[in-house]
């Protein structure tokens, strides 16, 4: 428990850092970014929008600690300000629309990639120098060297444009209404398939190599030799004995690479015009919608921190050593 509490405290601190950075960014930037922003929007926006902008960036005449306090209070109430480009939609509403799609794509890509990659790593580590071990790592490393979004462009071109197997863009067909029916869910899956596949393809090599080296480390241990001497089947030995113990480092790296995978999937969304957080963020950048941009940053960061905390809980569950370390 103490270990977990310490980790949770750390995530709380990290969240606090992100929130504070978010507050400071517009104030720290050279050449009075906020002033320039107002100058640019002056006359183009209604007075209410300008006021919303001022409030979103937190520019008021009060001293900075007072501004900070107001900012924190608004945030705690889920008030991220008002969107400029979609005035007067609250930022929080815009962010919510994207969160589900990103969790869907990045989450399933992470899960599928991790499971397949880990399984491949077990096979490769078990039969070092075998077919899987000599063919897959270099080819996956080569694929992994392409930027995610470029892979997305290539796959979209092949599967979407040339062969027309999958839709070209968006999360569901135009005209479809979101509802809990089989047709709609199938439609969503068809749209998500390629983005998910892209991220899985790009990350597979990493999971595989991580698991492979963890397997190699476990293979020399004596309990495996004992198991073999007892005449356990190879299958049981590989999966129940070796893989189970080798899994831990890979689960730990799952937590650490979350942010990285998410970053890649955000770029992938842009290619597919998939309405998740990444696509929204790029739109916000292009339309200079700073409140939305900052709201998205906070939301993405909080999502990653939460996922990290979950991985930590998972680690304590599957590894008794982390639990005993507290004693």
């Amino acid at each position, binding site marked *: 428990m103490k270990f977990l509490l310490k980790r949770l405290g*750390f*995530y709380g*601190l*990290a969240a606090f*850092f*992100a929130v504070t*950075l*978010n507050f400071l*960014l517009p104030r720290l*930037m*050279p050449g009075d*970014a906020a002033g320039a922003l107002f100058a640019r929007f002056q006359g183009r926006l209604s007075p209410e929008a300008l006021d919303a902008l001022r409030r979103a960036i937190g520019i008021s005449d009060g001293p900075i600690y007072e501004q900070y306090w107001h900012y924190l209070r608004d945030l705690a109430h889920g008030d991220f300000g008002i969107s400029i480009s979609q005035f007067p939609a609250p930022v929080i509403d815009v962010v919510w629309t994207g969160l589900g799609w990103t969790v869907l794509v990045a989450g399933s890509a992470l899960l599928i990639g991790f499971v397949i990659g880990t399984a491949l790593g077990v096979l490769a580590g*078990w039969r*070092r*120098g075998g077919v899987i071990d000599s063919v897959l790592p270099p080819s996956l*490393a*080569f*694929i992994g*060297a*392409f*930027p995610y*979004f*470029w892979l997305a*462009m*290539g796959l*979209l*071109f092949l599967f*979407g*444009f*040339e062969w027309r197997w999958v839709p*070209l863009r968006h999360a569901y067909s135009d005209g479809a209404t979101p509802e809990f029916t089989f047709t709609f869910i199938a439609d969503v899956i068809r749209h998500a398939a390629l983005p998910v596949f892209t991220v899985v393809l790009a990350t597979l090599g990493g999971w595989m190599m991580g698991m492979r080296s963890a397997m*190699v480390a476990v*293979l*020399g241990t004596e309990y*495996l030799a004992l198991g073999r001497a007892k005449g356990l089947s190879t299958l049981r030995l590989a999966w129940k004995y070796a893989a189970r113990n080798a899994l831990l480092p890979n689960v730990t790296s799952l937590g*650490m690479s*979350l*942010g*990285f995978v*998410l*970053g*890649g999937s*955000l*770029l992938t969304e*842009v*290619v597919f015009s998939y309405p998740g957080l990444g696509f929204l*963020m*790029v739109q916000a*950048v*292009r339309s*200079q919608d*700073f409140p939305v*941009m*900052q709201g998205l*940053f906070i939301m*993405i*960061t909080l999502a*990653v*921190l939460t996922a*990290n905390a979950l991985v930590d809980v998972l680690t304590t569950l599957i590894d008794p050593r982390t639990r005993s370390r507290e004693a």
Partner: protein
Amino acid sequence: MAAASSRSGSGGFSVLGLLKTNGRAQLGLGILGLFVVVGVIGPLFIDDAGNYVAIPYLEPSFAHLFGTTGQGQDVLAQTIVGTRASLFNGLIVGIAVVMLGAAVGVTAGYFGGWIDDVLSLAVNVLLVVPSLPLAIVIAAYLPPGPFTVGIVLIGTGWAWNARVLRVQTLSLRERDYVLAARVAGEPHWRIIFVEMLPNMGPILLTQLVGATTYAIGAQVGLEFLGLGDVGAVTWGSNLYWASNDQALLTGAWWTFVPTGTCIALVGFALSLLNTSVDEATNPALRVERSWRVYLKKMGVLPGMVTPVVRP
């Protein structure tokens, strides 16, 4: 940096020896060398890659080997000119990332105590905060351009290096020669720069390779989003324009395939280089490799043990 690492003796590691014996390192350096030559010499033969040369979206032909873009520019010329900017910026950012990471990591590891606590906390926080969204938000506030991209990537990319070097420093700090230097009253900066850093040569080298890979990839990513200078010709802006001009929907695959392949080849070459430097400096990996080769020669299937002696 290469010179420093070839002098330092950890496991008899030398760049030349690596080149002579390791096929992967040869391949990696070969590919990289080709791109460096293209990047340095290539642009001299090209007038201006942004010029309008032919009708937009011409398929690859003898006149325009890689075809033309949606704005009638020569894709080959753009790829070549982009090579220079992207490699150069990537290397500069890579060097800066390693230097910043080394400064923080070594300081934290060497001084320990509250300095270590504070710096480690900063490093760990930066490691969990997703770096791409952070980079985008910061870059959006700055004027778009290569300088912004560089600063943002340096600011968000150094944490991992700092972490690794901190651990390395912790283990070096207790070595006899460092303790001796301390007893002899050498100043801290001298112990760090003269005694300890040269012994981290190989690690710094792999970090430089890794950081450059990161920098090239992340730079292309930010430029693809339009946060770089979209008027300049770089690999990232090539892809930005390909996507902006709807190349995908017109079937103009040649506008994005060459640039992407170049990025992947450079990334692949760098990772080959990294694994072979790793192999050369990590005895366990080196032994395993030579052991496998030896077993193959003797016609024996590799078993499941990790060898501890060299054949």
